[in-house]
């Protein structure tokens, strides 16, 4: 009988997903579609935030939303009423979204005619941070009631995002959320992250965010190059 031998494999478990993500990003670049991966905890106010964002942009951009949350809190109808096309993804109870699942969503869209696709990722701050969805930018929402200590508890998520939105800023007087302390904690993990404080409910602080998003979409559509985002920098 043959003796045992060592077969070296040395393959990253994330390699296939990374390759698929890069492919999808390239295709989105060709069709001039900005794919935005939105991550947060459940209850962070994503629905209200998304509806307002869509409302502010719908005259300038054609928008679609890919709904991945298992325990979805965004009603597809509510998103449609706000002015965007909504697609429900079938994630089969997974705790994160992969590039392959994202593709299933984008393939149902007429992406040649869509400027912005928002992926509403699964609501948790752990698993989605590990998987590149193929998005151009990764954005997370942290809401005031969740607390300013979240960067200490979920450092990975804060490291892979290009933008942090501190939401529900209208209720800050009722909580001991310290924006400066939170900002300091986040910058320690990710010095280049953009931070906006806003309220999806009242619209407070929304215009700098909308301006950033408009610029990011425009830049994606006019430049030939795919700029490396924060998640791509941390990929293994």
């Amino acid at each position: 009988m043959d003796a045992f031998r060592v077969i070296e494999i040395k393959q990253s478990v994330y390699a296939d997903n990374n390759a698929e993500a890069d492919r999808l990003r390239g295709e989105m670049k060709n069709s001039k579609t900005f794919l935005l991966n939105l991550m947060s905890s459940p209850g962070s106010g994503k629905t209200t935030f998304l509806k307002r964002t869509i409302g502010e942009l719908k005259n300038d951009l054609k928008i679609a939303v890919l709904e991945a949350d298992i325990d979805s809190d965004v009603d597809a109808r509510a998103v449609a009423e706000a002015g965007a096309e909504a697609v429900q993804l079938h994630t089969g109870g997974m705790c994160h979204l992969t590039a392959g699942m994202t593709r299933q969503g984008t393939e149902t869209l007429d992406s040649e005619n869509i400027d912005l696709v928002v992926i509403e990722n699964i609501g948790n701050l752990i698993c989605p941070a590990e998987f590149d969805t193929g998005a151009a930018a990764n954005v997370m929402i942290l809401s005031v009631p969740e607390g300013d200590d979240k960067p200490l508890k979920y450092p990975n998520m804060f490291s892979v995002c290009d933008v942090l939105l501190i939401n529900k800023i209208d209720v800050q007087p009722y909580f001991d959320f310290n924006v400066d302390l939170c900002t300091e904690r986040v910058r320690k993990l990710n010095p280049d992250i953009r931070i906006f404080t806003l309220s999806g409910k009242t619209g407070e602080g929304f215009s700098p965010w909308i301006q950033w998003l408009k610029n990011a979409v425009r830049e994606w559509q006019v430049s030939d190059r795919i700029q490396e985002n924060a998640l791509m920098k941390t990929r293994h």
Partner: protein
Amino acid sequence: MHELGLMAEIVDKIEAVAKENNVTEIETLVLDVGEYSGVVPEYVEECYPAVIEGTLLEKTALKINVIPGKARCENCGTGFAVKGNENCCPRCGSQKCKVIEGGEFVIKEIVAR
């Protein structure tokens, strides 16, 4: 949390590798799991018996090498352990540091015949 799905993927990959190499028996599967890979070694071990059931790896032992987190300061180039330094260079205090090891989740090798 996502260990089960990842392990199922690994089993598929190993079965493909085994086929390519005309392997009939796999004694050990060796994984490198970085301290900061987001993968919890205990969870991997816990779900392992379930994912190998009925596969070529049914009798395969699992060995996990935990890879400690290492970072390099982008300002002064110092390499240091992530643990205890909180992404802050112990030499110059810069916060522009890059994790260079400990983020990986890699199928290292199999011992087979």
